């Protein structure tokens, strides 16, 4: 049913039950929002989105108010603008005011609003907050003093991740977002996904920044500093340098990392190929013996921690494969070290990930060999961008370069790991070959592509039906697990990524990218897959070489020693 309304004196069509904000957005009329998140039920907490409605004495919040026939709306009347300005001033009244020393300086919604509404003096004085910053997590830093209580983090953590380790606590002027008993995030059920950082409008949430440590180690002469970057990185940073969003700048990235001073540069996509070799062999074994099925993927460390906390009974079902980051780390400090005649102790292994949970993963006890950790330091996309800037690298002036050998070649199967469904497509290609001894002809599997939180399909190989599910967003994973607990048994392989859409939308990525930017990253990955020739992990010549001169074969003794891991039930406050 169509209804007609008037906005700022002009007529517009609207749908019954639409909110005012939806109509405004659709017609390119911008009103600010803070607590609002697209796709979530409005909470109406912040009131920055107020508009004036003829005949109503109160200003109303447009994000939660539905349109009705004949409604006359003013979005920028003097009264509305003044009200919004006052709201911003109130939010600032207890704010630390240390923008210059804030991680979100120049990329802060509160700062932007203060500028937009011309807040140039302090009219409202409130007592400052005096909360402790929580540095306990290896991934996430939480500074409640900068929090404006919009509640976005709380909602993402609960409604997308199904974790709910943070919540509004206390009330009135003492209200703050906190954990159970205000304990450190490290002892909570937080899975380190970083999705809360991605939605926080201010500097209240950020990654544990490690750029200083990188600068230090790059200055040390006696260390060989090796870097790997995840498949998502090369399609995720272009926009930060004025290039078109989603553009694959792989070669330029290699050049930039060498300029910064890294001695060797690797693409984690190579290790993704390696993961596919191990993981598909593992799946075949499990199907053959009908054991520990369905098998869950293990590349996403936030999912792993989630399972250890919430679904320990399914730990035997998770692939024992280390994630590509950790496999890469392990072979860098073994095969590569030997080949280059460098002792593993002398190597400092850095990885660049679109992910905050990878920081946690790298320091898990099991992610080491003979007391030497696979990966020494993990930085996110955001920290990488910081480094590129601080080292004065001009991305527009660099000539593309190749990654280093060995491990210098990747298939496109390894590359598409960065998107939800990618691991599955890559695995199917190798699985098909292993089971039929012929190559798959049609690579593209539309059923597992896209941003849908749950995708399912049945694959028919040699008359055997293999059930496949692809999930992103841990809340969706929890739902699927419940179905399995309740007896669902038609699925053999389940890919789980915590972040909605996969690593291209990871918690370490650029803050403030639009949905469209993220879609472009996905497009870019599939374009690479479409246009390049080497599409199969098992056809990667450097992977074959690694097996023939070091690992022998998938699931070999050596593989188990270096490339596989185990999981343990975790006791945290659920």
């Amino acid at each position, binding site marked *: 049913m169509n209804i007609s309304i008037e906005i700022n004196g002009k007529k517009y069509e609207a749908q019954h039950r639409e909110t005012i904000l939806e109509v405004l957005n659709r017609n390119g009329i911008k009103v600010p929002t803070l607590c609002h998140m697209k796709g979530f039920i409005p909470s109406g907490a912040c009131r920055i989105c107020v508009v004036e409605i003829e005949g109503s004495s109160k200003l109303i919040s447009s994000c939660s108010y539905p349109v009705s026939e004949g409604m006359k709306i003013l979005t920028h009347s003097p009264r509305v603008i003044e009200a919004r300005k006052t709201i911003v001033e109130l939010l600032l009244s207890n704010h630390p005011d240390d923008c210059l020393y804030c991680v979100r300086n120049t990329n802060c919604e509160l700062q932007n609003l203060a500028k937009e509404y011309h807040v140039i003096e302090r009219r409202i004085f409130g007592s400052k907050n005096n909360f402790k910053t929580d540095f306990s997590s290896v991934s996430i830093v939480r500074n409640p003093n900068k929090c404006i209580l919009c509640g976005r983090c709380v909602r993402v953590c609960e409604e997308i991740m199904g974790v709910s380790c943070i919540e509004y606590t206390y009330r009135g002027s003492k209200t703050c977002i906190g954990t159970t*008993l205000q304990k450190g995030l490290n002892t909570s059920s937080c899975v380190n996904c970083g999705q809360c950082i991605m939605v926080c409008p201010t500097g209240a949430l950020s990654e544990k920044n490690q750029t200083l440590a990188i600068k230090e180690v790059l200055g040390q002469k006696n260390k060989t500093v090796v870097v790997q970057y995840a498949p998502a990185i090369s399609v995720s940073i272009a926009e930060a340098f004025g290039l078109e969003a989603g553009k694959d700048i792989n070669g330029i990235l290699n050049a930039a990392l060498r300029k910064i001073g890294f001695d060797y540069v690797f693409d984690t996509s190579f290790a993704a190929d390696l993961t596919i070799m191990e993981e598909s062999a593992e799946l075949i074994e499990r199907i053959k013996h009908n054991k520990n099925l369905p098998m869950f993927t293990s590349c996403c460390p936030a999912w792993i921690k989630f399972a250890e906390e919430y679904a320990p009974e399914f730990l035997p079902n998770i692939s024992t494969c280390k994630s590509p980051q950790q496999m890469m780390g392990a072979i860098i400090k073994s095969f590569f070290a030997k080949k280059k005649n460098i002792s593993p102790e002398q190597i400092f292994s850095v990885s660049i990930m679109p992910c905050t949970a990878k920081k946690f993963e790298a320091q898990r006890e099991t992610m080491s060999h003979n007391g030497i950790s696979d990966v020494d330091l993990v930085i996110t996309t955001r920290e990488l961008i910081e480094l590129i800037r601080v080292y004065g690298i001009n991305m527009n002036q660099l000539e593309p370069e190749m990654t280093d050998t060995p491990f210098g070649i990747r298939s496109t199967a390894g590359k598409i790991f960065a998107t939800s469904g990618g691991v599955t497509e890559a695995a199917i290609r190798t699985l098909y070959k292993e089971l039929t001894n012929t190559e798959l002809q049609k690579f593209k599997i539309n059923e597992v592509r896209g941003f849908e939180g749950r995708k399912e399909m049945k694959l028919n190989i040699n008359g055997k039906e293999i059930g496949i599910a692809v999930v992103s967003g841990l809340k969706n994973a929890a739902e699927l697990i419940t179905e399995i607990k309740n007896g669902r048994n038609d699925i053999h392989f389940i890919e789980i990524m915590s972040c909605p859409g996969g690593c291209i939308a990871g918690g370490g990525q650029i803050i403030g990218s639009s949905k469209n930017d993220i879609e472009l990253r996905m497009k870019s990955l599939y374009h690479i897959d479409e246009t390049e020739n080497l599409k199969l992990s098992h056809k990667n010549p450097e992977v074959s070489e690694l097996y023939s001169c070091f690992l022998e074969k998938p699931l070999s003794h050596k593989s188990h020693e270096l490339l596989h891991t185990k999981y343990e039930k975790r006791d945290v406050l659920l």
Partner: protein
Amino acid sequence: MKTKIDEILEKYENIERDSLIPLLQEIQESQGYISEEAIVKTGKKLQIPTSKIYGVATFYNQFRFEPIGKYHIQVCRGTACHVLGSATVLQELESILKIKAGQTTRDGLFSIEVVACIGACGLAPVISINGEFFANVTSEKIREIINNYRSKEINHE
């Protein structure tokens, strides 16, 4: 081993989420505070994340999350006490003991609780320590009272 908290929880069969507050009240009544064990077990029983239980509990002033001290000090914030300066008394008390209302000193000796009118308005501002009332408390007086308790402790040892 079955704890007191288990026993309380067992009494609530087919419990719904809206009984959270009475349940927490009963636990506090029995234990003197809401412990981590209480939060975890209540969360399990009601299928609510512990953060939500804690969030609800902190919303109300009545719950505390640390066991009360040997000397439990209740500061009245009823209207009469308020008018006659109980806020200053509370502030002073918090600074002497270096804890906030709802907390307990590290040595377990003192805890502070802010209570609504305790019905002794004639004595305002009034505090009660383990049930014993102290009338017309001022900043100086509260210091003296605490010092007395402290020396009592030292002499006993």
